[in-house]
């Protein structure tokens, strides 16, 4: 497959969603810095260019504010601007120095040892979900039964929310995802209104939780986020934003990491056998599964200064899409990139991004995925695909509708 330079690639067609890797290969080979009319953005698909883009100061993360300002100038003060208003405070859509301060204040809560200490808690949650799955027979959806509820339950537990509130976390996460990832069709028309209703409820819930932690601090992540760092601390509104970001960024991505990992193993029975024979391989195995078919296809950047990438001039006001899923399959960086090799090492994939904005929850996501995949492989012998999965037609995430499997 080749992509003529005049052609405009759309990554949200059903064909591109089902097999984006064929499109990425063609782009890397024939037009690695591609202007897509469909996305009104540059698609950057080679590893070296994606990697360099993470350090290029012409590419800004401050990408929600411009959209918000445009909407406000158009006099469209609405539910949409309410949602975007909350999101503009997130560290992930800010540049230094705002980003630096927030990241520093959040870092303590994500420290490696704190995450490592959650091993038993996460294993317990994984096993509780798998208990029900094991009892079921016939074809069952591993996403709706395990991979989807798991991360929201982990986040709710980490924040110290009572178990009976966990379902609400899932609903809020879905509403946030509607706005941030975007969907097509009927869901688009009222997505901001739906999200805003959920968000108002979520904000007041988190405010109440913060008040409670202030009088009764605990070992939970929210208490850690509330701690002072030097002479600075997060304000209550920033804490609410941080909780929302944690839920939004840590839910669907982790669901897809687990689901995509299981699918890749089912499609590569030799590698599944290898993992069953050698469970200690789970660490490098998860890195390889993240490289091979990770949860994020595309990260966005907003262009704030003229810059050049591979001979193409990119101008202020334009957008670039860093195609992580393509960089992770670049043969210039990875030998045999389309081969799943659970022992691959070193494995410098960019599934979590790179540099100052690299996913702060990477250690947590790794641990959840390692535990979930290891327990699924161990507890579901005879795991088999029951139907061909359908992929969601979305740009940013690599996401299946369902993963229907049988087990013995």
């Amino acid at each position, binding site marked *: 497959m080749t992509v003529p330079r005049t052609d405009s690639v759309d990554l949200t067609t059903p064909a591109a969603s089902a097999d984006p890797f064929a499109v990425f290969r063609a782009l890397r080979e024939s037009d690695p810095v591609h202007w897509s009319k469909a996305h009104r953005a540059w698609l950057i698909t080679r590893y070296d260019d994606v*990697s360099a883009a993470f350090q290029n100061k012409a590419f800004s993360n401050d990408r929600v504010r411009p959209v918000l300002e445009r909407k406000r100038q158009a006099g469209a003060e609405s539910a949409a601007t309410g949602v975007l208003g909350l999101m503009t405070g997130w560290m992930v859509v800010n540049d230094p120095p705002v980003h630096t301060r927030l990241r520093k204040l959040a870092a303590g809560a994500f420290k490696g040892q704190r995450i490592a200490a959650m091993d038993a808690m996460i294993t317990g949650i994984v096993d509780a979900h798998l208990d029900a799955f094991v009892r079921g027979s016939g074809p069952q959806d591993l996403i709706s039964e395990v991979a989807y509820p798991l991360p929201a339950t982990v986040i709710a537990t980490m924040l110290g929310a009572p178990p009976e509130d966990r379902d609400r976390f899932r609903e809020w996460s879905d509403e946030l995802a509607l706005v941030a990832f975007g969907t097509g069709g009927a869901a688009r028309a009222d997505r901001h209104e739906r999200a805003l209703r959920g968000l108002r409820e979520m904000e007041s819930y988190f405010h109440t939780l913060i008040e409670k932690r202030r009088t009764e601090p605990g070992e939970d992540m929210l208490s850690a986020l509330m701690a002072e760092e030097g002479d600075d601390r997060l304000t209550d509104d920033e804490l609410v934003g941080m909780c929302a970001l944690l839920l939004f960024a840590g839910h669907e991505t982790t669901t897809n990491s687990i689901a995509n990992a299981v699918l890749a193993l089912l499609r590569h029975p030799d590698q599944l056998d290898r993992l069953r024979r050698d469970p200690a391989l789970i660490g490098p195995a998860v890195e390889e599964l993240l490289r091979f078919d990770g949860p994020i296809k595309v990260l966005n950047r907003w262009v704030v200064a003229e810059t050049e990438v591979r001979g193409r001039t990119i101008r202020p006001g334009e957008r670039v899409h860093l195609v992580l899923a393509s960089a992770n399959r670049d043969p210039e960086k990875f030998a045999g990139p389309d081969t799943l090799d659970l022992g691959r090492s070193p494995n*410098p994939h960019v599934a979590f991004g790179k540099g100052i904005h690299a*996913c702060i929850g990477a250690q947590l996501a790794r641990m959840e995925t390692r535990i979930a995949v290891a327990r699924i492989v161990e507890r579901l012998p005879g795991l088999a695909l029951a139907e061909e999965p359908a992929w969601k037609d979305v740009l940013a995430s690599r996401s299946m509708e369902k993963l229907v499997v049988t087990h013995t």
Partner: protein
Amino acid sequence: MRISVDPEVCEAHGQCSIVDMDLFPLDDDGYSAVGPDREVPEGEEDAAKLGVDACPVRALRILS
């Protein structure tokens, strides 16, 4: 315990800094600022090991 980074190998993935940004500082471009020989404060050896292990290109190592 002492740790070090090989600047020729570091690719600015930032994974060490996620484990502990005080033990594994980054420069403005996201590369490790650990330097050739950095002392790990007592009691933080486990965190240092986690951070060294988190490097996807093995640019970090424990010196002693």
